[in-house]
């Protein structure tokens, strides 16, 4: 199913040296990508397409986007407002219930409501608002320049690493820092290092602490050490993080338990409740997000493949590099519609409620042009992701395999 493995096999065996940190993405291309032309190298999974076909594919995807833009209106606005209302009610209800969590049903209900509230706030609302999906409404409360989420990583820093770097350079090894977040090996194309032996353990630890992992990742420590990020910029980001972290910890782990203790002697339970709600959200977000680009079959790309990239090639990279999750409407909402990762990557600023109707059209185009549309239910995709992360703890070829390959040659 995956062609990534063959690709790496053809390349010289990666050396044991630690690669230099990835420099910040910088390029002079500005504006709309050209519709005609071809990149230096087209990914193997799209190599069967002619330049003409790639151009047509680009036009067809543009047309899908234009169709949604033409219809976007009051109904979409009502959708996001409804989501926000539900989310705020769950949050405030969950917290209020936790104040009386000495009683077991209150503990279970409060924790559950708060966890779901946080998931909605971070995923269906926060992630998508911060993408600017709702900027067209011109509502300052639902805008990419003002929204702040109930997540320890400050929104502005995340927008830089996510919207700017990850979405532009999706799955390009050496450019997209989300490929393993600097701490994991998720692609055969990443050279193996000794520390990768810890791959599964690092991932196991990252899942419940996801918000802290992302906050640290957004600070780009390695960029400062390598001289790509100025000390001042780092300091500014670090201060923003400290401020956010203090208020988040104060809210969830001090103020609420304290109030619970005073009101009904529920201090300890309330603390367990907020810790659990955050952990549930963390594990859920981690699982969904890792299924977006890391299951088997999601492609990675080289810098040659984006050199001279056309609009159609850009779309192809987004589609081949992303993977969807299948499920019910509620499931899609709970994943922040990141279950429609392919559609989200093709159209990052279309309102998330529209991905569900766009998905069959994108899938039909993939079929038409012979491109893999990677999708499956969560358990399957998650298992595939974990298997890969375990497999990649070891080098692509173990010493004895290399010996065997040489012998057959």
């Amino acid at each position, binding site marked *: 199913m995956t062609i990534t493995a063959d690709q790496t096999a053809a390349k010289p065996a990666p050396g044991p040296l630690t690669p230099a940190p990835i420099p910040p993405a910088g390029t002079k291309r500005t504006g709309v990508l050209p519709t005609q032309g071809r990149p230096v190298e087209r990914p193997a999974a799209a190599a069967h397409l002619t330049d003409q076909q790639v151009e047509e594919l680009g036009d067809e995807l543009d047309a899908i986007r234009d169709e949604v833009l033409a219809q976007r209106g009051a109904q979409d606005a009502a959708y996001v407002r409804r989501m926000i209302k539900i989310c705020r009610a769950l949050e405030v209800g969950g917290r209020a219930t936790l104040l009386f969590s000495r009683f077991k049903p209150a503990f279970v209900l409060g924790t559950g409501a708060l966890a779901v509230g946080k998931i909605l706030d971070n995923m269906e609302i926060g992630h998508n608002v911060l993408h600017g999906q709702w900027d067209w409404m011109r509502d300052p409360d639902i805008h990419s320049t003002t929204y702040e989420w109930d997540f320890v990583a400050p929104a502005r820093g995340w927008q*830089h690493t996510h919207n700017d770097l990850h979405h532009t350079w999706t799955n390009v090894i050496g450019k997209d820092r989300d490929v393993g977040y600097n701490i994991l090996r998720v692609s055969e194309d990443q050279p193996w290092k000794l520390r990768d032996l810890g791959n599964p353990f690092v991932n196991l630890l990252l899942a419940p602490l996801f918000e802290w992992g992302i906050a640290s990742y957004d600070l780009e420590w390695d960029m400062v050490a390598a001289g790509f990020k100025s000390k001042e910029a780092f300091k500014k980001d670090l201060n923003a993080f400290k401020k956010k972290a203090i208020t988040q910890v104060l809210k969830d782990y001090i103020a609420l338990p304290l109030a619970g203790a005073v009101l009904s002697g529920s201090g300890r339970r309330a603390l367990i409740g907020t810790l659990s709600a955050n952990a549930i959200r963390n594990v859920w977000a981690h699982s969904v997000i890792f299924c977006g680009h890391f299951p088997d079959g999601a492609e990675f790309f080289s810098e040659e493949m984006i050199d001279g990239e056309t609009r159609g090639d850009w779309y192809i990279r987004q589609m081949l590099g992303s993977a969807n999750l299948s499920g019910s409407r509620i499931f899609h909402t709970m994943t922040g519609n990141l279950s429609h990762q392919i559609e989200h990557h093709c159209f990052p600023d279309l309102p998330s409620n529209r991905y569900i109707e766009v998905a069959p059209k994108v899938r039909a185009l993939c079929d038409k042009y012979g491109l893999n549309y990677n999708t499956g239910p969560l358990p399957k995709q998650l298992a595939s992701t974990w298997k890969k992360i375990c497999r990649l703890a070891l080098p692509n070829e173990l010493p004895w395999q290399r010996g065997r390959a040489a012998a057959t040659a």
Partner: protein
Amino acid sequence: MVEILHGKPITLSCMGVKSAALRAMSVFTTPIPPEEYLRLVNPLASSRQLRGVVTSVTPETPTSATITFRPGSRWQPHQAGQWARVGVEIDGVRQWRSYSLSAPAGADPAVTVTAIGRVSTYLVRNTKVGDIVFLAPPQGDFVLPAGPRPLLMLTAGSGITPVMSMIRTLVPRRKDADVVLVHSSRDRTASLFTDELQELAAEHPGLHLVHRYTTDEGRISFADSGDLDRLCPDWRSRKAYVCGPTEMLDAAHALWERTGLPDTLTVERFNTALAPEVPGGGGQITFEKSDKQVEVDGSTPLLLAGEEAGVIMPSGCRMGICRTCLTPLLSGRIRDLRTGETHDDEGELIQTCISAAAGPVHLDC
């Protein structure tokens, strides 16, 4: 402590308690402002955006209506003659327009809107009691003089709205009021506030009313002082206010200049300069903060033009994905290079990396 018993300090201390309560609540709601949760029960609660709830909608003429609203707590009371920006959502998109407040000073704000275009027609036809409108604080210098003076009001069409607020404020409350109102409208049915004005004039000798129906009598000429001399012989000794179509404002202004009395005339303009669409696009871009200007064609992204001129501009993906480049459009018209659509809303945040000039453009960077 004793002062607390008197009006003002009580409200002050209420405000103090309220803001302290909000601050305490924000410990539990951070990073989301407590108002976002309060809004579940109070639709006017908002930390970023002043809101008002519509309390009445009164048709005035076949094409206009007065909309009264109760504003949220951060509203500052208006002075008679001032205007406010009003925001409504049409097809999910917030649209802002300016409207003079026609209610007297001290009363709940009201706007009287005449349906001539997209937003005004929506307001007149679709507004219902209970709707939420968005508001900006009242502003403007078209206000009554500080001391008592004889006044002349020259209005036409919907230009009467700010003057109506002045008359409602002044005439019933001041015995020494001396106001002449000369109001032009097409005919009786198109004329705003006719009944109320006639009642006021009958009741208060301080208001002298002249209605000019232009379909029958033609427009007032400001080419010379003839018309005015007839309608209000002592016009030169009055402080004058004029509000109406641009031609009328310009002509009145010129007459007062010629007469050597420019300081006694106060003008209110409803029309803002429109940004015309330039075929083929391109134009001059002015980067206000950096004080730089460049001439560009209709396909060069504003981001590129700015950088080449040495303007420090925010950017990220440079291809319309990340929105790092959002910059306020101060005035002018831009074209989205992906969709070909043009935008000209003042203050709108635009993506400079995929927008080009479609005429002269002023950017806030």
